[in-house]
């Protein structure tokens, strides 16, 4: 009985301690983090490119078309 009470208490405590945090916020914060890098175009230029929430395919398609305006 004592063990059951302790288990229930632990379950409630864990549930309420996370109740104030929106799990979506954690996910979006991690995924939507802006990432920047230097992109070297085909005519010798270097540009800072930042991106968030785009796939590598979309980013590669964009950079291929743009190519620093070369």
């Amino acid at each position, binding site marked *: 009985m004592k063990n059951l009470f302790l288990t229930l208490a632990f379950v409630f405590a864990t549930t309420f301690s996370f109740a104030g945090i929106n799990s979506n916020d954690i996910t979006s914060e991690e995924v939507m983090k802006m990432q920047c890098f230097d992109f070297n175009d085909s005519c010798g230029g270097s*540009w800072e490119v930042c991106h968030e929430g*785009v796939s590598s395919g979309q980013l590669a*398609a964009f950079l291929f*078309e*743009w190519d620093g305006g070369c």
Partner: protein
Amino acid sequence: MKKYTLIILLFLSTITLYSQVDKLRATYELTYQIDSTDSSNLKTERMILDIDKSISSYESERKYLKDSILKSNNPHSVYGLSKSKFKYKIYKDKNTNKINTLYDYTAYKFEIEEIIPKLKWSIHKETKKILDINCIKATTSFAGRYYIAWFANEIPISDGPYKFTGLPGLIMEIYDTKNHYKHIVIGINYQKKNVKFNNNGFTKISQFDFKKFLKKIKEKPSLILYNPGIQIPKAGLDKYDRNHRERQKHENNPIELEKK
């Protein structure tokens, strides 16, 4: 038992051979004059025509490679490729009698559907060999240009590069009388892969609205780079606009001079 196995194997190999004949890839070298006033400015690109039983697809080899790499596990290896001047893929479907052209302008992907044009071909007596295959001369007109074609009776597939079709054999060579657009076949391979029409992510648009879109990107070429998830310095977009506007001044000679 051995006898039955042999019969089954023979049957299967016959089926395989038959299906291979239906599918082939013709590779063309396209030589085109982008500026109608400058005959010294000729460019070339390889174009691919994949033919299945009732459907075919036509696009530039550079675009084909670009799209394949972008779908792969290493899309960033695309940077070594040369850009294609032809941002479209043309599907001809004999069952539906329609042509669906998919235009890929990075941020904007459009599809235009039209009826396969009924070209009035005149077949002539002249013959010549291309890739050691006998070809017969034919002539027609399409979208403001007069064309001379050479087709192969030996390959009884009524198809050809771009929107050209309607001859009793594969078009091996076709050029307009001004020599502004010339396709010549440089290789034919049998294929096992089916041609599948895939218009996922493309928005259907009318010819009229597409013309309006082309006018907009002529004024501001960097519109096609719109992506709220990617930030680059403004100077980079300005440079793109400047260089593309300059290039467009010399690009006044599309393959289709008249549109319905």
